[in-house]
């Protein structure tokens, strides 16, 4: 069923029910993937999934209901369901639906939408990655998995105030995981890219190099260390704590950044943007989950917190203007607040220069179990880690089986230098881009 027809059914049902303020949000994703294992094609998948949600205001309260069954009766039933739910929500302030303005400017995506590859093309990539992994080392063994895939997401949003928007974006990815065994221990390495050409991306070789480098990892002595976080792990850590910039979390007392706008919260070397049109990201987004135009903005500039992120309701409650960061995690989720591309601005140091500046310390290339080991409310983290020892500014052997612990708000102040090589993620409409960074004074727990 087309979005136009869905909208027609729901708008008609809403008018009949006497509603005046409502919106319809539709999201449909098509996923395609191919996997290979131990030299052979292993799995192939194709799927379309999505649905529609209806939100309405009743007596100052917002109610919503959603379904994946895009059939006339099921859709019309969303209206009474949403109205019943609205009656149970505690009224706070008058709900806000976005009224489009004549001078609204929706940004233009700067990256061309990548073509969706065929299943054969994806299988070819997965197999080529297999061949390249096995060719890269004699240590490669069974369990080596590769994959290639693509995803296209269509989003439509319309409301009773004349808003009618749609956007479609796509991404492609290739993944290589090398499993090796040197006769005494297994090891693994993994790499991902938005590039399907295995020769161009080099991820097969990268995965094997990483797996070999990890062999023979030694324990680390418990103590305080300087660490360089790899770009990938900076991304992971900053992604885990990206919710602290939500104006709503701050309003609810769930972010320690509440009331800290225009104060120094981080080292002067740190600048972070939210950039819905981040160069290279094919999942750019011109409007937010409420239909407001999206824009690039600095969250942290030279260590100073410039703004938190807001949607219409939170902005009104806290006396701010929306930053166009209303987020819908899926077609069914209530509106929350999130960045689009949480982008840490690069510094000038190469990775080697960061090692030189550190002198002695650890290069962290793995942080595991972030969902469990980090608490965004307190900022505390304690995370299983692995990486490399750095001595006299040079890599000096693999290390593993230790934790790094600290507090994210303190870590922000302890960033001594930011690298220049940014890594971007391959993910949906919300992602993180970051370079490596040198952090002082990190607690490490290992052997006595």
């Amino acid at each position, binding site marked *: 069923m087309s979005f136009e027809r869905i909208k027609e059914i729901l708008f008609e049902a809403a008018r009949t029910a006497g509603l005046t303020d409502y919106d319809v949000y539709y999201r449909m994703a098509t996923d395609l993937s191919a996997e290979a294992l131990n030299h052979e094609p292993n799995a192939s998948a194709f799927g379309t999934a999505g649905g529609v949600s209806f939100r309405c205001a009743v007596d100052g309260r917002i109610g919503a209901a959603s379904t994946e069954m895009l059939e006339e009766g099921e859709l019309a039933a969303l209206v009474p369901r949403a109205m019943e739910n609205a009656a149970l*929500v*505690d009224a706070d302030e008058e709900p806000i639906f976005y009224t489009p303005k004549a001078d609204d400017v929706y940004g233009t995506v700067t990256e061309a939408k990548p073509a969706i590859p065929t299943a054969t093309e994806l299988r070819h990539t997965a197999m080529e990655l297999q061949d390249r992994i096995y060719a890269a080392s004699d240590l490669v063994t069974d369990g080596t998995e590769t994959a290639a895939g693509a995803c296209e997401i269509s989003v439509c949003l319309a409301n009773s105030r004349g808003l009618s928007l749609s956007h479609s974006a796509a991404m492609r990815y290739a993944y290589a995981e090398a499993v090796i065994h040197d006769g005494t221990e297994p*090891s*693994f390495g993994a790499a991902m890219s938005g590039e399907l050409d295995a020769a161009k991306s080099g991820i097969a070789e990268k995965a094997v190099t990483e797996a070999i480098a990890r062999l023979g990892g030694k324990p680390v002595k418990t103590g305080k260390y300087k660490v360089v976080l790899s770009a990938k792990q900076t991304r992971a850590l900053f992604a885990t704590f990206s919710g602290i910039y939500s104006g709503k979390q701050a309003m*609810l007392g*769930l972010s320690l950044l509440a009331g800290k706008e225009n104060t120094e919260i981080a080292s002067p070397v740190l600048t972070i943007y939210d950039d819905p049109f981040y160069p290279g990201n094919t999942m750019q987004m011109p409007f937010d989950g409420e239909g407001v135009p999206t824009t690039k903005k600095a969250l942290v500039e030279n260590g100073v917190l410039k703004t938190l992120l807001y949607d219409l309701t939170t902005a009104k409650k806290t006396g701010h203007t929306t930053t166009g960061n209303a987020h819908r995690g899926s077609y069914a989720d209530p509106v929350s607040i999130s960045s689009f591309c949480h982008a840490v601005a690069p510094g000038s140091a190469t990775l080697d220069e960061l090692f030189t500046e550190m002198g002695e310390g650890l290069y962290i290339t793995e942080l*595991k179990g972030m969902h*469990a080991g980090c608490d965004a409310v307190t900022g505390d983290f304690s995370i299983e880690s692995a990486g490399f020892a750095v001595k006299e500014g040079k890599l000096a052997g693999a290390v593993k089986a230790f934790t790094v612990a600290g507090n994210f708000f303190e870590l922000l102040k302890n960033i001594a230098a930011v690298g220049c090589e940014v890594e971007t993620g391959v993910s949906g409409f919300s992602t993180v881009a970051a370079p490596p960074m040198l952090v002082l004074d990190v607690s490490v727990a*290992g052997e006595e």
Partner: protein
Amino acid sequence: MIAKELLGELLSIAVSTGGDFAEIFAEREHATRIHLVSSKVEAIRDQVIAGVGIRVFCGTKTYYASTSNTTREGLLACAAAVAGAVGEAGERRHISLSPDAVAKRHTVKHYPDDVPTKEKTDILREACTAARAVDERISQVDGTYLDSDRAILVANTDGLCREDRKVRTRLVVSAVASAAGENQSGFYGPGGGVGIEFFDTVCPRSVGARAARQALTNLTAAYCPAGTMTVAIENGFGGVIFHEACGHSLEATSVGIGASQMAGKLGQQIANPKVTAIDDGTALGGWGSYHIDDEGTPATRNVLIENGILKNYMIDRLGARRLGLPMTGCGRRESYAFEPTSRMTNTFIDNGPDKNEDIIASIEYGLYAKEMGGGSVNPLTGEFNFAVKEGYIVRNGKICEPVRGAALIGRGSEILQDIDMVGQNLKTGQGMCGSSSGTVPTDVGQPLIRVRKITVGGRS
């Protein structure tokens, strides 16, 4: 959900291009999620999830197509898509289905749709109000009520045709305690594979109060010291240690492709003889229980480790093909959008020979981990981690001051040998487990145990 004739037609199309087996999974789920924060019901997510997934095997190669378009045309297109991925058009054969029913053991008294949403918001409000009432330093309470009523149908080219209905209810409270510009959090989230009668035995007020008390304990706690220590891990969600250190490595998902530390070890002594571990998908009303798995296989009580000896893996349909071993009824998926794989259900270390008081008394200096958070593992190396949410230093056999902010890390094969005392107060805790087939509800559990030596990721 889908007429028998259409199921046969879809299966016939799916295996017409060279596949040796095809399976259809259909579901319709009504899920309610109520969110309360700052003492206000903020949002109600009221969602209908419906769709179909069709899978074809060619030996151990799999082909999968899924769709939320459940019209006849949508389903025929889905079957054609998966068949097209397998190979060229071939001969269609008649598929004969033999619907049967698996004996029901889990009963539901009050289905979610039969209970007014108002009653559910009242339960949530009661829990969150109780959390706030514990202490004036409780500055925020964030609560979520969840229920789900999921009907599934599985049919395959072996003639299997089975249906099941799975109901789950859960209440989750997170409390924040604040003092002197510092926040600390507490969490409790019990759930069950039952209807709203869950609250006949679980008092919402006690759920809220428990989360609040944990936040307050952490507010007065110093950072946990770092290093290697003896650790006593309490029952209930403490069982996450087995889930991460060993459970994932016993799933056919990794064992079947040789990417597990436990591959090839059946019959070997892999754990301390005091350790017996079980994955029980039949546990009455269990958070991870069901009658049939998402491949139509009846749930089983699967003894994984008996007195330290590895007895079995968790084996789904594809894993059975890869390993040449019988299925254990553990093929699970978050929804039709995911291809199923071997997953844990209700997994626990059974009661052992040691008295709980002896376990604490045996520790000269160490950590008592009372409440645990989630974790993760690499099944290949067995390196795992999980978070301590509420911990205390043990000194001279006595539980002393609280400490906070620590992860425990180790290697599964070593930790299983280092579990050297197993107590007698088995209890389970509820969690959500993520893997390649999505996020599914799983129980973890154990009695109080002692781990001789483990790395504690505190502050140095």
